[in-house]
């Protein structure tokens, strides 16, 4: 996802074609990131569109064109987090609206056995989902960005706008919780 800074400058000046170019170049990776952050395929596109609407209306707040990608990640993380908060509120008021995937996650967290027919990928995904359900939404997103998306601490520092040490502490605690949950599922593992 490499965006020419000149295109960002044009988009910031109100050039619709340049903005379209940014969206075309970034939407696929952004859709993938959102998919992993929110864990629900149905709403991925809506959240991605919210990200790009925010990009459109806050491009003038971008301090430097070189920092566009970190800034885009920041907007993505914020939009995904807002979505998860809204969803949580809805769930609290209407438990019957739980999506099938969330039920699976909840079952996984409760230690329910999966059916043997499920594929290896689905099983592994559900295992990661259940492990991630042990940490807060913020830590879950941080872990996904670090461990799944493979972002460096420097990149995370630019996205979250916090010091590297604070991120290290947060990551340490989140990893510990996940590891504890992993060991609980199978005491022989993680040693």
């Amino acid at each position, binding site marked *: 996802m490499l965006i020419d800074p000149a295109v960002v400058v044009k988009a910031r000046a109100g050039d619709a074609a340049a903005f*379209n170019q940014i*969206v*075309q170049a970034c*939407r*696929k990776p952004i*859709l*993938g990131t*959102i*998919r*992993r952050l929110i864990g629900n*395929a149905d709403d*991925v*596109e809506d959240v*991605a*569109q*919210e990200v*790009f*609407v925010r990009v*459109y*209306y806050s491009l003038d707040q971008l301090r430097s064109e070189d920092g566009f990608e970190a800034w885009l990640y920041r907007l993505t993380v914020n939009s995904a987090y807002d979505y998860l908060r809204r969803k949580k509120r809805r769930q609290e008021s209407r438990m019957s609206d739980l999506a099938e995937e969330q039920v699976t996650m909840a079952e996984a967290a409760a230690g329910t056995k999966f059916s043997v027919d499920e594929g290896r*990928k*689905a099983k*592994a*995904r559900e*295992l*990661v989902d259940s492990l991630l359900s042990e940490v807060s939404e913020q830590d879950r997103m941080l*872990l*996904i960005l670090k*461990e*799944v*998306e*493979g972002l460096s601490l420097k990149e995370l520092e630019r996205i979250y706008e916090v010091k590297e040490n604070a991120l*290290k502490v947060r990551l*340490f605690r989140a*990893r*510990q919780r*996940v*590891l504890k949950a*992993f060991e609980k599922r199978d005491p022989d*593992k*993680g*040693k």
Partner: protein
Amino acid sequence: MNEFPSELQQLFKGYGEFHEDVEPSKDFMPRLWAKIEARRSPWFAMQRMARLMVVTAMAAALLMGAVLIPMMESQKPAGFYADVVAHDTLKADQEYAASVSLPDLEAPHR
């Protein structure tokens, strides 16, 4: 712990591949522009302003509460019921005394 054990590392690295690729729908761009235009409308601006006003009013109410309640509390005499009654009686007496004008003692008596 700066890293996960290798088994967990692999599991997390593979997590990205465990999800199928999400392809943007054909109407992604038209829908996006429709949303952008919708936020430009006066109705949306009014909604945002109304939300802002509600938040401002709530913040002002909280601030007033935080400032005024301690002020009112500090004006009340602390202590037992008898102290409170005595304080109020004294205050009432002072107000009564202030409202009564005494005759000028220097003036010659008739």
